């Protein structure tokens, strides 16, 4: 395994609605900052890969237009996934493993505010038996939440506490959207939105962008004082038939964690991509995180959730704390698909 590290990270401030800038205008400063901070000249970066979803913008090939933010001349080696940028990172990591290149720029962006993200995500579903019903991502998550509560392993109060902690942690994150001190009891007094989920149990709609640069071995050591080494990265997917899955557990997260080497050793923090409060509970259980591990110090996806960006942001937030010397070992997670169908786990470590 070739040693690969995150050497820089940048993000746009998440906003409920970016009214002035288009995607390229949001993304360009983020890409420029990530490249500048990497210490690697842009033309020497070996590979560029993005994660985004054209349906968020409602435009076919929206991801191609986004290359205007990068400046693809002379022609660059480039790729794209119609998924969260975390999975674009995985592709970049694999490419570095081949030894063909020593560095890669990974970015993701999304202006979710232009449409209805929960409705956009309907298009991920089985097109014959599920999507035609018109069901949205929040309704699906709500069905999962009820199953979790019925299992007796967690309560609505546990969910409210996840939200309260997320908002509180987000106070120290200038890029988060929802922050503040909220009392779980106050949250529990709110009406249901899609029972048993309340509005605050669901991540906000956000516009945003994230970029990071990864580099291999000696190059990473040369450009970063404390590279955030990717010690393991793996992703697994479950059936697309929701009726066949145990929605109260996340076996794909557990397996990805095992394969990424996340089962052993201590973590200072874990950034988990849980767009719904009950999903953080499921993920923590699947990961078997020890007590005392700080969960989502950034506030997580409940504090800001630009579609297709939040997963890469988790990896970036975890890596940043290692790059800054705040943490030694971190776990980052990203999800894709309805009800935690597909999950990526990444173990990051400082020198």
């Amino acid at each position, binding site marked *: 395994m070739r040693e690969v590290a995150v050497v820089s990270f940048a993000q746009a401030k998440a906003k409920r609605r970016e009214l002035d800038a288009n995607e*390229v*205008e949001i993304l360009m400063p983020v890409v420029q900052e990530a490249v500048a901070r990497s210490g690697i000249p842009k033309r020497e970066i070996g590979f560029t890969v993005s994660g985004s979803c054209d349906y968020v913008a409602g435009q076919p090939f929206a991801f191609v237009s986004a290359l205007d933010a990068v400046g693809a*001349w002379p022609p660059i080696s480039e790729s794209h996934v119609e998924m969260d940028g975390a999975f674009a990172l995985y592709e970049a990591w694999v490419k570095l493993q081949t030894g063909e290149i020593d560095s890669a720029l990974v970015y993701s962006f999304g202006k979710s505010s232009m449409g209805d993200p929960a409705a956009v995500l309907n298009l991920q579903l089985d097109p014959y038996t599920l999507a035609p019903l018109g069901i949205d991502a929040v309704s699906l998550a709500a069905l999962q939440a009820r199953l979790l509560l019925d299992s007796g392993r967690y309560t609505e109060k546990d969910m409210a506490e996840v939200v309260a902690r997320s908002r509180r942690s987000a106070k120290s994150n200038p890029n988060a959207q929802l922050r503040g001190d909220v009392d779980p009891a106050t949250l529990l007094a709110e009406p249901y939105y899609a029972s048993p989920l309340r509005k605050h149990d669901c991540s906000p709609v956000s516009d945003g962008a994230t970029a990071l640069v990864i580099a291999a071995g000696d190059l990473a050591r040369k450009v970063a004082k404390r590279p955030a080494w990717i010690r393991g990265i793996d992703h697994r997917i479950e059936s697309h038939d929701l009726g066949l899955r145990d929605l109260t557990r996340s076996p794909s997260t557990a397996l990805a964690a095992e394969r990424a080497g996340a089962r052993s050793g201590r973590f200072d923090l874990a950034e988990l991509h849980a767009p719904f409060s009950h999903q953080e509970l499921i993920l923590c259980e699947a990961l078997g995180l020890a007590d005392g591990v700080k969960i989502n110090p950034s506030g997580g996806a409940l504090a800001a959730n630009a579609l297709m960006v939040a997963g890469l942001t988790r990896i970036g937030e975890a890596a940043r704390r290692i790059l800054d010397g705040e943490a030694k070992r971190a776990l980052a997670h990203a999800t894709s698909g309805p009800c935690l169908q597909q999950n990526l786990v990444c173990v990051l470590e400082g020198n």
Partner: protein
Amino acid sequence: MSEPVTSIKTPIRLEYSYTAGRASTRFLRGMSEGRILGQRCPLCRKVYVPPRGSCPRCGVATQEEVEISGKGTVTTFCIVRIPSENLSVKPPYAAAHILLDGADIPFFALILECPFDQVRMGMRVEAVWAPREEWTASFGNIRHFRPLAEPDAPFDSFKEHL
């Protein structure tokens, strides 16, 4: 018993509300005033019309505004013979790439008011605007392009833009 089901209709429909972005907003406001506004890259100095706020080559923001005339050159074209529901023009008609004087990238438009088989590379054309009272914040204020009574532009003057 009738035939087994072999297909199902699965229409999809999503609604969006777009905001124009900074560069497009400048351009569209210009359109509503009958002006064509491009933007110049601070590094390579190229002028883009319509502008998108960034130089696709350099990957930097463009801000300097450049007003462009409605006169330009056909860099390439094709004759369309397939009808389209969305167009009022009946085929065959000429669709072209037009490089406006002062701009560095061509854009797509129709050439009308001339026999389609007279359209050629290098042909000089000018924008035909809708009546002023119909102007909105839209590129559609320019209905099409028509020939200009000028000698053709030499190939060398546009060969970099093919």
